[in-house]
């Protein structure tokens, strides 16, 4: 594929976007984007909600008009609706929202047939392609099942099949992986690569996950209607010089404060601290950090090449001159209270919940100590929200019990509700009220006195970085600020237990980091127990402890580093292999016992017990098959690797039974 992309570079690009501008009323969605997509590549658009990805994709698909600039697809400039019609035969478009564009009442097969007939695919070709695609996606045995009864991963694959059934030369996929579990996501990328390779087609794919960057041949980082950086993933990582340093130090909060005074990007990841040392090499970074920490004992420290998210944020700092508000700065960490009391702040014992025949949560047990950040990690539909709803007393459990502060939630009355704060997934703010009005409303609901209210209002404005936005309506705030306001409202009555249900969905990386900074402060300084759910695998690293949820069950529960250590112990370290042609190489490896080998753009990742020996063996294996081996190197395990490992192990165990 790498070669294909290089050869194709000489040809005219398949899609050429120049100075693209899109406005909705007075609001600007995309402000001047220029990019080319070449034949045969998977081109990525990465950015948070509201970055302008969807607008750009819709315009390229010919379903959205634009205000300035030009969009050229297959050499046809999409100047009018009529011009757009000319290219639609050759492209496929999958809109955002997992499987939402499919027809719920229709079966898998009927959905596919509909899309095919809409495109006038001849019956014989349809029959042949349908069988092939159903086989690749392993949906064949479910062909008669109505779409509404499919899991998230299956819906996503069906949507892909429906988009591909007329064999388009260009496919445009708008956030196909959002909210899908990592196992299905890996599956999806492999299927997409195979199909594109087989047919020599090109794909434009958007995602909100930074860690998916390595899946693309080339990509554009988008933010606020602009492209921050564009290029191959490796190039982008190198664009901002510097190293990424992970360290563990005593007096974490204090260490964090000292490092923040020197480095722009410092964040706490559970017990670890992550520093992006811009413009420094590993040795220089090491020296500077040691000097800064001074008397604080340093337990461990290592440096790696920077993550894309570091680069994204650094690029943002460069492009937008104004520095980002640092909500937690100016806070005194002197009053650090050791994670106080014994006993669990939140406890779940064999918690189960059925909806009809469907078991949404299956015997879930865990406990969260005061001052601990506990993460529930899983895909949409894994049972995370149901868990929270049972623990907050919103819905009763079918079995088991959940308690907060030692009190069973089924019997808890108003008293316990005073002790917990809850930020729900969808709705927790009144979007027509201003920032101040929202805080006052929540203060009123919890019966705070006037003095307490003013006190908490000032606290929320200061800690949420909301100064200057006091009289804006909540609905007009950017996602990041809105979530911090929601958090402030949930904290208005000083709860000792905080439940957060996907609070950072759709928030940009900068906003997410600021949000986590506040959470860190709450847990370490104020001793609040925090239970948070997320489907961002990278975000999970912020948690002190993590439970991986899959199909209503907890498949693993430990500190993130411990989870990684266990996987490394069981399955070995992660190897990255660059070989070409990459797809046959992948097939060969999978056939030779490396069943977990996965495709990441032009590279293959796999787990191997004895990394060095395995490296040599892999090299030999691939060379013998006549493939060119670029390099084989070790990579740190990601949370996604951990998740995939546990789930596949679980599935394998079930299959054997």
């Amino acid at each position, binding site marked *: 594929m790498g070669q294909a992309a290089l050869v194709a570079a000489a040809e005219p690009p398949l899609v050429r976007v120049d100075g693209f501008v899109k406005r909705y009323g007075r609001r600007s969605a995309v402000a001047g984007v220029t990019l080319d997509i070449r034949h045969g590549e998977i081109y990525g658009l990465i950015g948070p909600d509201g970055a302008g990805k969807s607008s750009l994709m819709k315009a390229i698909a010919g379903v959205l008009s634009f205000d300035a600039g030009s969009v050229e697809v297959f050499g046809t400039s999409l100047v009018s609706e009529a011009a757009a019609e000319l290219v639609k035969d050759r492209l496929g478009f999958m809109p955002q929202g997992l499987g939402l564009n499919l027809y719920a009442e229709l079966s898998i097969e009927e959905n596919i047939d509909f899309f095919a007939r*809409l495109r006038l695919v001849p019956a014989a070709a349809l029959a042949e392609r349908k069988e092939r695609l159903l086989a690749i996606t392993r949906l064949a045995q479910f062909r008669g099942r109505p779409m509404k009864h499919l899991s998230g991963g299956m819906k996503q694959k069906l949507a892909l099949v429906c988009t591909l059934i007329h064999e388009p030369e260009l496919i445009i996929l708008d956030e196909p992986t959002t909210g899908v579990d990592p196992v299905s996501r890996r599956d999806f990328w492999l299927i997409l690569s195979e199909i594109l390779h087989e047919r020599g087609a090109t794909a434009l794919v958007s995602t909100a996950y930074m860690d998916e960057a390595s899946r693309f041949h080339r990509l554009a980082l988008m933010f606020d209607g602009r492209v921050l950086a564009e290029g191959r993933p490796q190039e982008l990582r190198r664009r901002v010089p510097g190293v990424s340093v992970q360290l563990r130090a005593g007096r974490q909060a204090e260490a964090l404060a000292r490092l923040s005074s020197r480095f722009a990007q410092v964040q706490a990841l559970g017990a670890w601290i992550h520093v992006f040392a811009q413009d420094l090499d590993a040795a220089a970074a090491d020296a500077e950090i040691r000097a800064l920490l001074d008397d604080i004992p340093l337990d461990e420290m290592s440096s790696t090449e920077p993550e894309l998210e570091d680069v994204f944020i650094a690029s943002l700092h460069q492009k937008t001159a104004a520095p980002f508000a640092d909500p937690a700065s100016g806070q005194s960490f002197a009053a650090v209270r050791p994670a106080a009391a014994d006993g669990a702040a939140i406890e779940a014992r064999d918690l189960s919940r059925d909806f009809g025949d469907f078991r949404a949560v299956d015997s879930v047990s865990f406990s969260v100590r005061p001052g601990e950040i506990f993460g529930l990690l899983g895909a949409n539909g894994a049972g995370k929200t149901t868990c929270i709803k049972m623990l907050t007393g919103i819905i009763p459990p079918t079995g088991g019990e959940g308690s907060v502060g030692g009190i069973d939630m089924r019997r808890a009355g108003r008293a316990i509700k005073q002790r917990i704060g809850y930020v729900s997934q969808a709705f927790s703010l009144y979007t027509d009220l201003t920032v101040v009005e929202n805080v006052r409303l929540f203060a009123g609901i919890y019966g705070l006195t006037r003095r307490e209210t003013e006190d908490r209002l000032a606290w929320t404005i200061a800690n949420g970085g909301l100064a200057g936005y006091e009289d804006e309506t909540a609905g007009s705030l950017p996602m990041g600020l809105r979530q911090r306001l929601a958090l402030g409202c949930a904290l208005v009555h000083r709860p000792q237990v905080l439940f957060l249900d996907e609070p950072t969905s759709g928030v940009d990386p900068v906003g997410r980091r600021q949000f986590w900074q506040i959470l860190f402060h709450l847990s370490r300084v104020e001793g609040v127990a925090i239970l948070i759910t997320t489907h961002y695998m990278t975000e999970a690293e912020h948690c002190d402890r993590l439970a991986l949820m899959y199909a209503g069950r907890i498949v693993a529960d430990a500190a993130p580093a411990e989870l990684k250590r266990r996987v490394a112990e069981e399955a070995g370290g992660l190897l990255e292999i660059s070989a070409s042609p990459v797809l046959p190489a992948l097939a060969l490896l999978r056939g030779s016992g490396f069943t977990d080998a996965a495709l990441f753009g032009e590279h293959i990742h796999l787990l191997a017990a004895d990394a060095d020996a395995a490296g040599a063996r892999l090299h030999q294996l691939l060379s013998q098959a006549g493939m060119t081996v670029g390099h084989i190197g070790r990579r740190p395990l990601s949370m996604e690797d951990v998740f995939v490992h546990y789930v596949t192990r679980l599935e394998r165990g079930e299959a054997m039974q």
Partner: protein
Amino acid sequence: MNLARVFTVAQREWREILRDRIYFLLAFLLPVMLMLVFGYGMSQDIENIAFAVVDEDHTPMSRDYAHHFIESRYFSFKGYLPDAGAADRLLARRKLRMVIVIGPRFAEQLRGGRTARIQTLIDGTFTTSTRTIQAYVEAINLAANAEIRAGQLARRLGLPPQRVAALMQPVVLDVRYLYNQEVRSIWAVAPGLIMLILMLVPPLLMALSVVREKETGAIYNVCSSTITRAEYLTGKLLPSVAISCINAVILWLLATLYFGAPFKGSLVFFAVATLLYILCTTALGLLISLLVRTQQAAMIISLVMSIIVSIQFSGLITPVSALAGANYAFAHAFPAMYYNAMVKGAFLKAVGFEVLWPQLLVFVLYASAVFFMCYLLFRKRTRT
């Protein structure tokens, strides 16, 4: 126009309607329910009014008088009661709607040539029916009076009673009600309801089915494909029209068989007129769906439009000729008024093509114009 693509859209739509329980109920149960509810609710005929008699006189004359009521088809006699107290209790429990109390000296007073007083107790909780009952009572009383007086005079003058009756009433009004001989209001209401329901349900179904696609994003499947605008709109229209045609048949059966309304006209004319009317109202729903974004908005706008047009501006309650100025013009801008005339004509007057063909032509033009507007409004490449 590629018929294969039209058929593909229509078939998918049809399958979804049949399998989506809520939509299915909306499509097929709602019209029947409306017909039954409104059929009973709007019918102003009052018959079989439960009543009883308190006869404190116990004479042949008092029984004679009571008999005038007992024989009437409007009243249903429940028996004699011992006293007015029992009557009160039964009226309060709504077992009776009306009670006649004949005083103890009824026969004696009449024989003495004096005026006898009868008390009638009527349940006044429903004003309309109360007035109707009162009118019935007065009419029967009048007839009874005439008979009693004729009897008395006949005896006194020694003439036959018929002769006396003729002398007393020199002019007799002989009314013949045309088209609805028994002036049963359900006969007039049932055809009107077909008009109302076919104005209400088809736009609602149509508007929801398109806006739903906009909400889920399924509309992008259409916009990003090669299907033409006319093909898509036709494909969406067909299943809705088919559902409404099935409903029209059900409604016609309910009107004629269940409510017993007579159907005197041509079935072919009625079928053609109804099909065209459904095309018009469905196209209106399509128009609404292209102007709004959410299902709620589509539902509210289509219901408000349908209710106002079909109740106030169709001739259902007030004849259109009685509307003035702008209201008169407004009524003419919607198909309900024309169809109301057609459906009444077909049911009650046996009027058909020969008289109403201009209205049919209006429908053809109307449906084409609205559909053309939809075609212009629907864009595969939008601004938002």
